[in-house]
């Protein structure tokens, strides 16, 4: 579904992605973790070309997305993305946030799009908030709206960029519940997160990055119990005592 082949990317002198190759199969849930600055968010943002790469090849659903595709918007329409800072449109009500892309990109009628949007709002547990503005919602509710907004495009893949890092602890659970439900429905998901409980419950693989490289790529149990790389062990010891 997603394939990286020898991908390199620099930010000035910083080598943020250093010869990254990996694959995500349809229906797989992959959790990416690693210390801050390890390149995990950049890797995620390359999948829908919010970041350009310097060399290498990235394919999504058989389509090259690194450079060869002139019409990246079409590919992006098939990939949902959820951001750390939610990035909801503050000037639009919740329902309008959800239907903007289906109407403008997919060309659905407002009624069709609203129907889908209402169903999704019910699914993420806040059907009553459709006429609210984002600023009137709690962080957890905003992030659930953001997930619903991404799902409204009926994507084949969902990307999550630290979706719970900006949330208060009591709101993290409500967002994770939605994500777990999504994973169980068989959605292909790539999730950058430090929520190891989530990884344990639903991830098929955990990828550990450090200094722009993929250092570990293993099933969750194997990753938690027998990580080979010393950097991964240090990271795990820090993050697991934390939980």
């Amino acid at each position, binding site marked *: 579904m997603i394939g990286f082949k*020898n991908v390199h990317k620099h930010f000035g002198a910083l080598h943020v992605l250093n010869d990254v190759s990996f694959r995500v199969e349809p229906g797989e849930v992959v959790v990416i973790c690693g210390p801050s600055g390890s390149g995990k968010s950049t890797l995620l943002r390359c999948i829908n070309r919010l970041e*350009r790469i*310097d*060399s290498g090849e990235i394919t999504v659903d058989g389509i090259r997305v690194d*450079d060869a595709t002139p019409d990246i918007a079409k590919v992006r329409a098939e990939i949902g993305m959820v951001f750390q800072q939610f990035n909801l449109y503050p000037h639009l009500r919740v329902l309008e946030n959800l239907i903007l892309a289906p109407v403008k990109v997919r060309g659905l009628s407002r009624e069709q799009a609203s129907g889908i949007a209402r169903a999704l709002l019910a699914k993420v547990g806040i059907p009553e908030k459709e006429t609210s503005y984002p600023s009137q919602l709690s962080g957890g509710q905003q992030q659930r709206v953001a997930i619903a907004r991404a799902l409204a495009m009926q994507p084949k893949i969902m990307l999550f960029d630290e979706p719970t890092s900006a949330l208060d602890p009591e709101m993290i659970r409500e967002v994770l519940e939605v994500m777990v439900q999504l994973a169980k429905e068989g959605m292909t998901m790539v999730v950058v997160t430090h929520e190891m409980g989530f990884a344990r419950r639903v991830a098929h693989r955990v990828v550990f990055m450090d200094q722009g490289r993929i250092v570990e790529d293993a099933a969750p149990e194997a990753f938690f119990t027998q990580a080979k790389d010393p950097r991964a062990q240090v990271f795990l010891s820090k993050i697991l005592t934390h939980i």
Partner: protein
Amino acid sequence: MTDQPVDLRRAMRSPRVKLLIWRIGCGVVLMLALRAVLDLDWTSVAPSWLFLLTGLGRSWLLAIVAITAGGLAAAPLALARVYGPPGIRQAATALIECVRATPELMIVFWVYFTLPIVTGNQVTSWNAALGSLSVIAAVYLAEVFRAGLYSVPRGQSEASAATGMSGFSTFLYVILPQAVRNMVPALIAQLVGLFKTTSLVYAIGVMEFFRSITVTNNAVFAPYQLYLVLALGYFLSCFAITRIVRWYDPKYQLLE
């Protein structure tokens, strides 16, 4: 991947290559401009170079004196507006806002034409220029200082107070250093603005850069050449102000 051919499309997209292309483009334009400038006849203008340079020097002098005097007056104005007791605060606000709402040219005229009528003493145009530019600098700088003081988050003074610092120490050691840092961009804008404003005292007969250009033009009639000198003189002066401050303040370079 070493034996792969260079991907041209990708190479054109790299920031470094784009910058290079941009710089080459700028270079070509500058060369063409330089050729056009050299094609002009400069013989009639050349003898006036010292006179024109003196004019530019006077503009700089006006700006520096006005900024210094204005800055000295602006500090108490800003402090009165931010920390002053009730009556004083409103008075400072009213004074600043009234002067800011008046066109700069009106202020120049006001000082030059009306002060003598009120006081009965004649004011030289040079002193009127210094006075009016200082007044202009004072009210605009007062606003810059005020914005700088407000730019420091409330949590800073609370945190400082929590450690037992007095109000004055909090202001001196916590608020002021941060405020000054945050003021730098606005300060540059005001310095540049004031330098440009010095051109207005042309209207009351001060022989600053603008008037020295027009006077020269009346004598030798070389409008294109002199206009180039005029534009270049102001542009380079203003450009220099922005660059000097950026060079002096390393933090500002990081912001770019």
